[in-house]
C-alpha cells in the first residue's frame, strides 16, 4: 500500500494506522507523523495535479531507499483552524529504523517539494531555510550532516 492523497476534508488517523499495521505478518514497526495548524488559522492553497504527483514521487523514492511494506501521505488544503491536522505521513516496515527514517525523509521532502502555500493573518507564510537544509541532509552526496 503506497498512496498519496490531496483532500479538503479531514482524514482519519486511526484508519491510516490500521491500514499500515495490517499490511501482513512482516510488519514490525509503523511510524505516523501528523502536522497540525499551530497558533493561528491558516488557508492552504495548492497546485492540483502537481501536488499528488510530487507526493507520489517522494513515496516512490522512499520505497526505493528503505525496505518498506507501505507508505502513505495525505495533505489537506483550504481553510484550517488551529489544532486541525494538515498532513499525515505514515510508513510500515519490519524494523523501526526504516520506518522512522523514511517518515522523516517523506516529511522533509514534502515540505520543500509539495506545491502547497500557507496564508496566515499576516499574509503568505515565508519559506524557511531550515526546511531546505532538512531536505538536503537526505542527498547522497552530502551525507547525514
Amino acid at each position, binding site marked *: 500500500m503506497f498512496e498519496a492523497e490531496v483532500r479538503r476534508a479531514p482524514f482519519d488517523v486511526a484508519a491510516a494506522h490500521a491500514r499500515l499495521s495490517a499490511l501482513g505478518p512482516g510488519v514490525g514497526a509503523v511510524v505516523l507523523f501528523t502536522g497540525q495548524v499551530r497558533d493561528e488559522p491558516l488557508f492552504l492553497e495548492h*497546485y492540483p495535479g502537481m501536488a499528488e504527483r510530487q507526493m507520489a514521487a517522494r513515496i516512490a523514492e522512499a520505497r526505493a531507499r528503505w525496505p518498506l511494506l507501505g507508505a502513505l501521505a495525505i495533505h489537506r488544503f483550504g481553510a484550517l483552524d488551529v489544532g486541525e491536522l494538515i498532513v499525515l505521513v505514515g510508513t510500515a516496515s519490519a524494523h523501526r529504523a526504516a520506518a522512522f527514517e523514511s517518515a522523516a525523509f517523506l516529511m522533509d521532502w514534502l515540505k520543500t*517539494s509539495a506545491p*502547497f*502555500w500557507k496564508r496566515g493573518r499576516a499574509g503568505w507564510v515565508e519559506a524557511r531555510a531550515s526546511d531546505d537544509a532538512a531536505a538536503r541532509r537526505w542527498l547522497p552526496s552530502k551525507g547525514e550532516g
Partner: protein
Amino acid sequence: MTVRLLYFAWVREMVGAEAEQLPLAEPLPLGELVARLRARSEGHARALAEPARLRAAVNQDFAGWDALVRPGDEVALFPPVTGG
C-alpha cells in the same frame, strides 16, 4: 501553439490571474519566457521581478530557469512552497 501558465499564492495575486495562455511557436528557455511575461502588465512585472524569489514547474515537475519550454507545455510560477 500556446503555453498554459499557472500562478499560485502571492504570484497569482500580483499577476491578477490564476491561469493564462502565452503563444509560443518554438522552444524557449524558461528564463526568457518569464522575461516576456513581465511585459504583459504592471502586475506581471512586479510579481516576476525577482526570479530568486520564485520557483517554477514545467509539466508539474520543478524546473530551472534554463529549462526549455515547448509549445503545449504547462508552466507554473509560484513562491517557494510552505506546506506540510
